[in-house]
């Protein structure tokens, strides 16, 4: 048992994550070819617009359900909505935010862009602390909008006229996952501007604009889009209940900042928060790079149902850092 643990703690999570992401990408984007369907309420961007997907992103169905008029939402079909949310939460609770770091196809694309940039030797951008704080509220605004806009289709707010159905899935329309992920199925049809109505035109225009910005942004900044991701905001509601946890022992921390240094999303609390045991923040994607970069024994660890899966150890740290590289 202790030798297994030692093996795990000495392992290189980054390499594992690279291959796991590849596997998850193939599964979620091409799973349809093998008639794989993991679920319809996945807490990750398994884009529904990709025909051959192996599971579906919850946000589309969720936005669709939000179009129900109140009468429906608070009666029988409301149970369906709750079941959907519960299924989503169930999926989420199993892996917590690791859905973002290990499974999200859009996140994987961003990581690939990062690899490309690194190989080209172009330096990355960073947000300063205040900018980071300001930007990270955007995801909550997006989450509110993706609930409220569809609601305004089925219901009238303050006596205003209801919105038409072209407002149906507002977030999907601006999500770069919609435009990019179907490309991997050979479907380029999402790259168009839809002139069939003004709403569609604006949304599809925004979608393409965001896609362009996404590509440039993710090239310059690691996990650029994740800071704005409303899915991540929705995750955070359930994060505390998750079985997979990332914990920190503040007493063992020397605040050396190695974890902060390697954090792709730039969470400063991972280095400087000495008081909280549960260290998963809303922007965290549980890539566990922080654990692998921590040189103190047992300071950071990922646990599942309380059982440590991956712990920071000096031995593992030096082994990873000193292993033969190119």
């Amino acid at each position, binding site marked *: 048992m202790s030798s297994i643990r030692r093996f795990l703690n000495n392992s290189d999570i980054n390499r594992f994550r690279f291959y796991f992401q590849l596997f998850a990408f193939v599964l979620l984007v091409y799973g*349809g*070819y093998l*008639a794989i*369907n993991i679920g*319809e309420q996945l807490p990750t961007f398994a884009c*529904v*617009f990709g*025909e*051959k997907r192996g599971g579906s992103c919850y946000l*589309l169905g969720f*936005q*669709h359900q939000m*179009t129900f*008029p109140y*009468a*429906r939402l608070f009666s*029988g079909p409301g149970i*369906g909505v709750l079941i959907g949310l519960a299924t989503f939460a169930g999926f989420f609770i199993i892996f917590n935010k690791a859905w973002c770091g290990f499974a999200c196809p859009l996140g994987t694309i961003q990581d690939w862009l990062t690899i490309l940039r690194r190989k080209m030797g172009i330096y990355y*951008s960073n947000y300063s602390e205040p900018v980071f704080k300001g930007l990270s509220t955007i995801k909550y605004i997006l989450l509110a909008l993706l609930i409220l806009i569809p609601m305004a*289709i*089925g219901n009238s707010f303050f006596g205003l006229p209801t919105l038409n*159905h*072209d407002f*149906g*899935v507002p977030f*999907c*329309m601006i999500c770069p996952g919609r*435009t990019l992920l179907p490309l991997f199925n050979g479907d*380029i*049809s*999402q*790259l*168009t*501007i*839809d*002139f*069939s*109505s*003004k709403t*569609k035109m604006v949304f*599809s*225009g925004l979608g*393409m*604009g*965001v*896609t*362009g*910005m*996404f*590509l*440039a*942004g993710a*090239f*310059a900044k690691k996990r650029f889009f994740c800071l704005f991701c409303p899915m991540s905001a929705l995750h955070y509601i359930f994060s505390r209940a998750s079985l997979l946890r990332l914990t920190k022992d503040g007493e063992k921390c020397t605040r050396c900042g190695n974890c902060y240094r390697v954090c792709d999303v730039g969470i400063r609390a991972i280095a400087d928060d000495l008081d909280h045991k549960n260290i998963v923040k809303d922007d965290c994607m549980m890539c566990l790079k922080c654990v692998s970069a921590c040189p103190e024994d047992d300071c950071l660890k990922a646990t599942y149902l309380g059982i440590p899966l991956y712990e920071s150890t000096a031995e593992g740290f030096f082994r990873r850092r000193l292993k033969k590289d190119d």
Partner: protein
Amino acid sequence: MKGVYSRGFFATCLSLVLLLGLCPDLSMAKTDAIWIAPAKAERKPSGQPGQPHHPEGHGESSAQQSGRPAQTSQAGRPGRPEQAKQSGRPGRPSGSGGEHAGHGGSSGRFESEHRPLPVRTYQIVPEQLLPEARAMILQADGTARDLDVETCHTNVFSVKLPMEEGPMHGPNNIYVFDQQIKDGVLEVRTAKWLTIHHSCGWGHDYRNDPERLKARSLESAPLDIVVDNLWDGNFHNALHSGDELVIRVFSYGKPVAGVTLTIITEKGWTKRKKTDADGIARVQLIRDYYPSTWQLFKRTELGKLAMTAEFTKEGASNYKGEVVDKTHYISSFSWKYVPAGDDYNSYSYGLLIGSLGFLGSGFGIFQYRLKRRKPKKTVVFDE
């Protein structure tokens, strides 16, 4: 040999045209072919069977969306609330809404059939169905069974569809057959209707399942029209104006050559073609939707499409003791189409905006980085 424009063909046109309130000539409303069309749910058994029209909601959605006069729109409406109650989905949005609001988007699929109903009721048009008429269903899993056709009073019949995943989940083919001797010719008629029984709530286990998705032919059908690629891997209508129809014609399960196919759209475009040696005819559908300005364009604008296949077989045959030396087979099938995505989707604008977004942000980042290289010049107080 009959003329290419058979009377049945004209009847088809007529019935479609009538529906739209644009009736030209009633005198020709005599038909050879029989048709299947969904019946209104609230229709009384003794009631007047309506004109054949396409699945529930077509009338409404097309009227609503194309902004046609209220007349048709009202005609289509009364059925809705009750039907909605029956299906247990009150206040369901019509048209582009539905289970796959998002899908509807730019690909312009049509989805009324993408809605599960526990019982689907059909009527046969015209009403003069012969007493021996029988109906069959070729289910989505490839099995066939008989259906009851109440021919005494009305030509309305129902198909029960279990509301779950099972043999019915997917495209179901409904057939009605009858035959009679008329003017010394044995007239064998077939009507075919396709319904897609699917709810996203059942899951998508059959999504992209080629066995489930394929267009089927019933072995016992005297003349069967099979059109490929009418729906996509997730059971949405996938026929767009301008698409090529690949029509295969079978008689008792075998492809037949030289069958005259007649295709007509709601707007009056017609096309005739004979099947080749393999029993296949390829027809390119017309592109017939050109609103005056793009603001008037509706991507869900439905076009309707009807087709008949017919051929006459020489040779003696015996029907109820009577011997005739000719058999005339006729078969009908109808479907719908929506504008092609190319009519309203622009790749060039998409890529333009995408590139602008990319280059704009890229340039912004680059400028920012350049600026950061310069030393800070001065501090400005905010007074």
